[in-house]
């Protein structure tokens, strides 16, 4: 099996300690992360609640700097966010004062792309994510699934090299999630060959989702988050056809084995 080995993101000894400004309490969210994200791969990230998955993504996005180690993107240290690294959040984070079209246009608008070009690009993406006819709606008028389509189109409008997605489908119902998984794969290029695909880093709590979408699965352990395991998913693409298949079920069961105890412990700690 041929995989592009070129690395897009490199994490070297990355650690992150949050310090509360109120009581000075320290929370170690990540420790000793050494990892590389390959160009063009679909990487899913799983791990118990609070293990630092969102923190990892926000370090790569450039929202925060690690307290130790370094984060490299295309060989250069990350300092601050960049349109090349697109971000999608669990809670949509759409601009409520902008319509669907206005939200999708925001990236090109912020980067000074002229109005005609960005309108055209926004319209293309709106059609692509299936929001045709909803261009003039405001986010509060949309369903959860439609909001996430809009957030996806907004991220894609900047044509980012890396898609950083933090539980983007966690808030939608199961049927919508299945449909959106398929569409996400289609937009990413599930049916195309590997090299020209964008790179995706996709955090999820759904272990079946993690298996179905991924080329590789990054499994993080309990706080402070460390790398517990990296699983290769050697299943053929396109993946939509494999939904519910025996191979996927087997890998899902294996993944569950890996994280079950830690998940239970994390819950026990949280409820103490």
């Amino acid at each position, binding site marked *: 099996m041929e995989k592009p080995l070129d690395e897009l993101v490199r994490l070297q000894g990355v650690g992150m300690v949050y310090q509360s400004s109120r009581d000075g309490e320290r929370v170690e969210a990540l420790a000793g992360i050494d990892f590389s994200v390959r160009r063009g791969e679909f990487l899913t990230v799983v791990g118990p609640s609070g293990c630092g998955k969102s923190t990892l993504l*926000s370090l790569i*996005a*450039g*929202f925060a700097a690690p307290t130790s180690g370094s984060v490299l993107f295309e060989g250069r240290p990350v300092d*601050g*966010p*960049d*349109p090349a*690294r*697109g*971000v999608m*959040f669990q*809670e949509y*984070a*759409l*601009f*409520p*004062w*902008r319509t669907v079209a206005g939200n999708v246009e*925001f*990236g090109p*608008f*912020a*980067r000074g792309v002229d109005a005609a070009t960005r309108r055209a690009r926004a319209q293309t993406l709106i059609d692509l994510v299936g929001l045709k006819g909803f261009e003039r709606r*405001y*986010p*509060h008028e949309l369903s959860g699934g439609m909001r996430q389509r809009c957030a996806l189109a*907004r*991220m894609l409008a*900047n044509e980012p090299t890396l898609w950083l997605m933090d539980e983007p489908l966690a808030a939608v119902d199961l049927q919508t999630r299945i449909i959106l998984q398929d569409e996400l794969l289609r937009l990413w290029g599930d049916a195309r060959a590997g090299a020209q695909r964008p790179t995706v880093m996709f955090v999820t709590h759904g272990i079946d989702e993690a298996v179905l979408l991924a080329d590789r699965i990054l499994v993080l352990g309990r706080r402070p988050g460390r790398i517990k395991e990296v699983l290769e998913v050697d299943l053929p693409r396109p993946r939509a056809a494999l939904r519910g298949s025996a191979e996927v079920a087997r890998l899902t069961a294996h993944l569950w084995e890996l994280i079950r105890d830690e998940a239970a412990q994390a819950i026990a700690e949280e409820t103490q």
Partner: protein
Amino acid sequence: MTGGMTRPLSRRARVLLPLSVLLVVLASWEAAVQATRTQGLVPHPGGVLWSGAQLTANGVIFQAMSGSLARVLIGFLFGACVGIPLGLAVGAFGTLDRALRPVLDALRSIAPIAWIPMAILWLGVRGNAALFVVAYGAVFPFIVNSSQAVRQVDRRLLSAARALGAGRWVMLRSVLLPSALPMIFTGARIALAFAWASIIAAELAVGIKVAGHGRSVAGIGQLMVETLYVKRDVDALVFYMLVVGLVSFAIDAGLRRVQERLLPWKSH
């Protein structure tokens, strides 16, 4: 759910019932005043109607109203021009907040109307004193709401905008400002209500207009003082009170409409 154990009223009854109660009250009020011969001391509906018609016909009410409204508008605009930038800055920069808070809190605690004697001393009674009081009262709701709006901006929206490539200017104009706008608008409604309440109080306190100085425009408050002390027309007084209430209702309703037009993303 409403109506307790009784059946819900029909649409016609819902309109007719309160209306007829109102008519009965007004009629018995009128009759009582007529019977006790207390006209001149106690207002009565007929007199209010008559005074109202006269004051409308000879334009007195419009003149007074436009004087008051002009001052409210100027004071309100002044409050917005000073209060919004100041509030945004205070909300955005913690140091500035630290530095200015004691002063702002102290000034805010002094009721605008308490400034009247000083304002009269400095600015005279020609309407400028009232204007000062109105501007003073209007500025604080703008400061408080604008600063609060900036502090409450959704951090995720800021992150999203930064990741999409927003620089400082786009951030300020296209993210911070629109997200602060609904709350600033609420501040504007409070400011306008404040301004309208304090203009009446200020004009009452300033008292009867000084005649013969062409420049002075008497407001509704001054007109009320004159009506009380010089004309002793209780019916006209009540008419003025009704107009004052009506205008403040109309102003707020108008602002609400503007808000709906300007901020269509908010479900009001």
